[in-house]
């Protein structure tokens, strides 16, 4: 897994413009939101937001929501090529997917190896955003020991959700041979209904219903609630955290199910029709992998180089 993570890092470093953008794109995405909010509320304070949420500082409201969302890593419209699903899509386009999947390791290991790079990247983005807003713009979260612990818990949940959604997204990409499918089914809806920078209860139905069943909403709300003391979706931050954690565990199970390779010939479990295609690829490659282990080892050496 470590070797695959290093491989992903070296691939990213090869495209230096993209790498630079990965480091700063979260700021670019945030600026129009911050400026629109500033213009709408004529400054930093917002009476309207205070009436709705009890929090008068719209800047703090938006920054906290966006930091949490950045940790999730799927909300950034500029990073459409920076995620597990797109890493897989990239391998498909360049014709190296089969070569990679022939490596004598489980496919889930390959995906998690790729995911490690993105965990590091999005943690970096969330941290720099939080510190930048705090040190430069006088952003004012309520920092208590309990709040910080809960915020870290929320970040952990978001990071794990990031990887599991990435794995499921990779499944969609492989099944449909179309990386936009992931974007439209997971990426943008999760962004839209999470309430990262608006008040969820103002959304019309059925958007509001989707927001209340969206795991990302609870994680974002828990993070914000931990650092402001006022969660919006639930009565307490702990409940929001437990809800987000429960959703994440369910997503992990789903992601594990998608890439389960333990059964005979890798055929066990075909729960969802569109995943059948992936299972078929897995079965074929598993047999190939057994037959050509020495070849796979040599390919692995090439990949590491």
């Amino acid at each position: 897994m470590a070797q695959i993570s290093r491989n992903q890092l070296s691939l990213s470093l090869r495209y230096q413009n993209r790498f630079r953008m990965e480091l700063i794109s979260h700021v670019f995405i945030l600026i129009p939101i911050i400026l629109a909010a500033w213009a709408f509320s004529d400054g930093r304070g917002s009476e309207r937001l205070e009436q709705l949420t009890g929090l008068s500082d719209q800047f703090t409201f938006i920054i906290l929501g966006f930091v949490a969302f950045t940790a999730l890593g799927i909300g950034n419209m500029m990073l459409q090529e920076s995620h597990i699903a797109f890493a897989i899509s990239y391998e498909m386009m360049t014709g190296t997917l089969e070569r990679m999947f022939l490596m004598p390791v489980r496919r889930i290991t390959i995906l998690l190896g790729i995911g490690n790079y993105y965990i590091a990247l999005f943690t970096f983005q969330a941290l720099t955003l939080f510190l930048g807003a705090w040190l430069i713009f006088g952003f004012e979260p309520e920092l208590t020991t309990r709040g910080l612990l809960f915020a870290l818990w929320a970040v952990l949940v978001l990071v794990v959700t990031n990887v599991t959604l990435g794995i499921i997204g990779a499944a969609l990409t492989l099944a449909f041979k179309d990386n936009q499918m992931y974007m439209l089914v997971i990426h943008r809806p999760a962004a839209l209904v999470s309430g990262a920078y608006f008040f969820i209860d103002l959304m019309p139905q059925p958007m509001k219903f989707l927001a209340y069943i969206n795991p990302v909403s609870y994680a974002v709300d828990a993070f914000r609630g931990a650092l402001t003391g006022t969660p919006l979706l639930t009565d307490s931050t702990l409940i929001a955290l437990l809800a987000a954690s429960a959703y994440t565990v369910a997503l992990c199970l789903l992601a594990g199910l998608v890439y389960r390779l333990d059964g005979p010939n890798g055929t066990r479990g075909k729960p969802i029709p569109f995943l059948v295609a992936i299972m078929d690829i897995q079965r074929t490659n598993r047999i190939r992998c057994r037959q050509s282990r020495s070849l796979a080892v040599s390919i692995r050496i090439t990949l590491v180089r």
Partner: protein
Amino acid sequence: MQAHSSSYKLPETASAWLRDAITYWLDSLTIAKYSIFIFSRYRSWLLNLMIGPFLMIAPFVFLGDTLVGEGKPLTGSYFTGTEFTDYIGFLVVPLIAVNLSNTVFTWIGGLIRQEQLMGTFERALVTTQFTSTMFIGKTIAHLLYLAIFAVSTVALVFLWVSPEFDVNLTAAVIVIILHVLCVYGMAFAMSSLLIRVTDSWTVQTVMTRAVLSILAGATFPIVIFPGWLQAIAKAIPFTWIFELERQTLLQGNGIDAELGGFIYVVLATIFMWIFGFVMLRVELANAKRRGSLGNF
């Protein structure tokens, strides 16, 4: 028009001009058919058509609902003197335009990069006599998509938020056509300019989705910027286009409301088209000489 062969000479007779023009058109149609064929393989376009625009526009409208209040007028100091009071219209008009522009940048701006990535760039180059037909052919194919996308986006917006439009039809049509031409011009220019950049898509993304969307003030008035940044913002054609679109679609004003901006955008559009086609020739020749044509 430019042929991929460096030995190409301009025709000397009217019949030769006609022959080349027909060849150019047929080459463009070939590329258009090829583009539609590729496009039809990715079925997400239908899903994108149905929910893509909504997902792009809705978060900003919800932000307005949260900070301004549904049905309440824009009253902040940054809107003083702008005559815009409906935040939904203020946001929706440029965001529709941004949404449509993004499809142009994805299709045309990413054209060469995509061909390089899939290893089909050289094949596409030798298929046609005139290399710039790659742009024109792709544009023909994209215009079909753009028409469907525009209709579905506008229908969706009207069904969902019903912004208060006050349209000056003639002026609006002229501005929208100018906007489309300007976006294509910029996409041609960037695509040509970045042929030798291995991750050109990234540079274009930064330019179109960051710099342009921030500086052109799609979701806020640019008076929020300090003076020096406003000057830079006004050098971007899209700043004027968004203003013209708001004026003609929301205020019922004519082009004369921003005549200086309109003339500036026309000149910028002509420049970008010429620049795009000239740079395609120059950069292709450079890439061939350096052996970096298929690099990605």
